[in-house]
């Protein structure tokens, strides 16, 4: 990568204190994010995937400056956000916008779509007052909503239409980076595809950069150029989408991909999938060694003691595993591989 990345996250840690007892003394900490690094080149879409509790949303909130990192650096367009005062941060808040999962709770029910879109434009004085209406109309056009929607309240819209208003509101600020936190997860299948396509088109047309948080691997693969797979606050594997999904190198990535059933009964009938055992441990008491070892189907003695660091496993690819090795997704069972060889 030659160009300077738009967003750079280095050694990010976020700890939440655990309090208990009458005096609410700090008795421990939930280590939600432990040492996450990644960088997003301008104009790219970067995916963060993982199961609930893996820290992906906390990373997003840290990037949005909604939680304070315990340590680490978040650089946006070359500037270190973590070192800034609230006043210094103000201009950056406009340039980094968010789209959330549930458009019903993230839109004010007492405001019309027109008001929702006009407010940030007015507050940030993005255009002169008499041009605001035209600007709002343009945002609705961009997001595929008819202009009559300026008069509608969120409850008068369907889920997909509300999400379009949520996207238009993010675009109203003319941001460089949009953090999409499970932005299509709550939508029906037929509508989800509309919003996925809208997000892809907007990125191309407006040159936007996305940090896309999701748990649906097929959606993340479709939308993102690069992906980081998180587990218990750490990045397990990081790679461009194409190789990551074709030849996962980390056993956790492989297990995640195995867990997703493909909509093809013929293929599924021939697929022997042994689901990953156990559940995600509590982030307040992570296991020693590799945090994934208690659930890992291939763990060896070393995994219980030494935590592996992210190490290169191919061009632009890194994985945190002592046994990391890119293998085709289909031939995950050892039996099948022997047959092929």
């Amino acid at each position, binding site marked *: 990568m030659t160009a300077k990345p738009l967003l750079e996250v280095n050694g990010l840690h976020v700890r939440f204190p655990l309090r208990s007892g009458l005096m609410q003394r700090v008795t421990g900490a939930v280590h939600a994010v432990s040492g996450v690094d990644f960088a997003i080149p301008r104009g790219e879409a970067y995916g963060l995937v993982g199961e*609930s509790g893996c820290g992906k949303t906390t990373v997003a909130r840290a990037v949005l400056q909604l939680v304070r990192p315990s340590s680490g650096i978040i650089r946006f367009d070359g500037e270190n956000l973590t070192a800034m005062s609230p006043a210094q941060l103000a201009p950056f808040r406009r340039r980094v916008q968010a789209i959330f999962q549930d458009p019903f709770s993230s839109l004010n029910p007492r405001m019309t779509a027109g008001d929702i879109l006009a407010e940030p434009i007015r507050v940030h004085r993005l255009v002169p007052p008499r041009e605001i209406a035209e600007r709002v109309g343009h945002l609705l056009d961009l997001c595929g909503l008819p202009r009559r929607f300026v008069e509608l309240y969120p409850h008068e819209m369907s889920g997909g239409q509300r999400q379009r208003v949520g996207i238009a509101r993010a675009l109203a600020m003319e941001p460089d980076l949009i953090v999409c936190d499970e932005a299509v997860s709550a939508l029906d299948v*037929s509508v989800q595809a509309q919003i*996925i396509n809208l997000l892809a088109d907007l990125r191309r047309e407006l040159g936007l950069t996305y940090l896309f948080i999701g748990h649906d691997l097929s959606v993340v693969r479709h939308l993102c150029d690069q992906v980081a797979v998180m587990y218990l606050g750490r990045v397990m594997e990081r790679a461009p989408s*194409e190789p990551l999904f074709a030849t996962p190198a980390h056993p956790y990535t492989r297990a995640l991909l195995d867990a997703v059933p493909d*909509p093809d*009964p013929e293929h599924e009938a021939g697929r022997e999938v042994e689901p990953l055992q156990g559940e995600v441990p509590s982030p307040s008491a992570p296991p020693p060694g590799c945090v994934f070892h208690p659930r890992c189907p291939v763990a060896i003695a070393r995994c219980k003691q030494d935590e592996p660091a992210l190490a290169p496993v191919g061009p632009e690819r890194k994985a945190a595993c002592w046994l990391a090795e890119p293998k085709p997704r289909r031939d995950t069972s050892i039996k099948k591989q022997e047959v092929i060889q």
Partner: protein
Amino acid sequence: MKDAVIVTLLKVEHLAVDLVRDGQRYGLVRDVSLEVPAGGTLAVVGESGSGKSLTALAVMGLLPSELSISSGTITFDGRELPDLSARQLRELRGGDIAMIFQEPMTSLNPVLTVGRQLTEGMRLKLGLTRGEARARAIDLLSEVGIAEPERRLKEYPHQFSGGMRQRVMIAIAMSCNPKLILADEPTTALDVTIQAQILTLLSRLCKNHDVGLVLITHNLGIVARHADRVSVMYGGRVVEEGLARAAFAAPAHPYTVGLLNSVPRLDLPRDRALTPIDGQPPDPMEIVHGCRFHPRCAWATEKCAQEIPPLAPHRNTAVACWHPVAPTVAAQ
């Protein structure tokens, strides 16, 4: 195991469910027919408002008071369900027919121990003593993969994770030797690896104990992995029905084709374009003439806006469409 002879366990014919509100009658489920063979798995697929959950509630006799079955028959194991008295229905529910809901936190009672909730049905329906029920509860919990069952019986639902709660729900459903389990989006609230665990467990238990399974879902991958047959619902009607293999290999209803073309897939090239279905899912309270899908359908004609297409055999599935999609078009 009886093979060769396929016994129909559940048969729903021409079911209609109406909502009556402010003197107006709205048809939320229309002309729905389903069939579950003993020990087989039927998936009912649809988006929100398609009527898939209402169909399950109607079978269980659990429709909210505003709703009622206005026509159709539901036959379970040779008995007409709507004819049964409230008492007979109560005996059936949790006995021969069990149900698993989406949100295990709201379907378990937070103030009773898991053991109490697990043994209640067995004591009531199977007439087991306290000790017998407890022994069977321990077996059931270990069968659904819960470690240290004796200790966990004494715990409350909040002490279980989401996946573990859903395992408890499966144990409760299996506790009275059901013939049929209705599972309404049983894994929608769970992470992918837990979803795979739970569905594999549920499928395996149903196969081993010869229990019929109705799996209500919006996830086409789950249908492909776990179901023998599939019914695709849209706007309160079944629009396509058949063997899952046939319906996925050569879908004939434009909605089924549209659904398959609109999901991103890990087994196809990354740059494959998604073709969404235009428009929004229908509002169940809105009256649409003709085929409910016609306002969103690319193939719709004048006829589609006037006449409701009946579900009729076409190629390898049954389809409710005046202009079924040719296999070559569907493959695109």
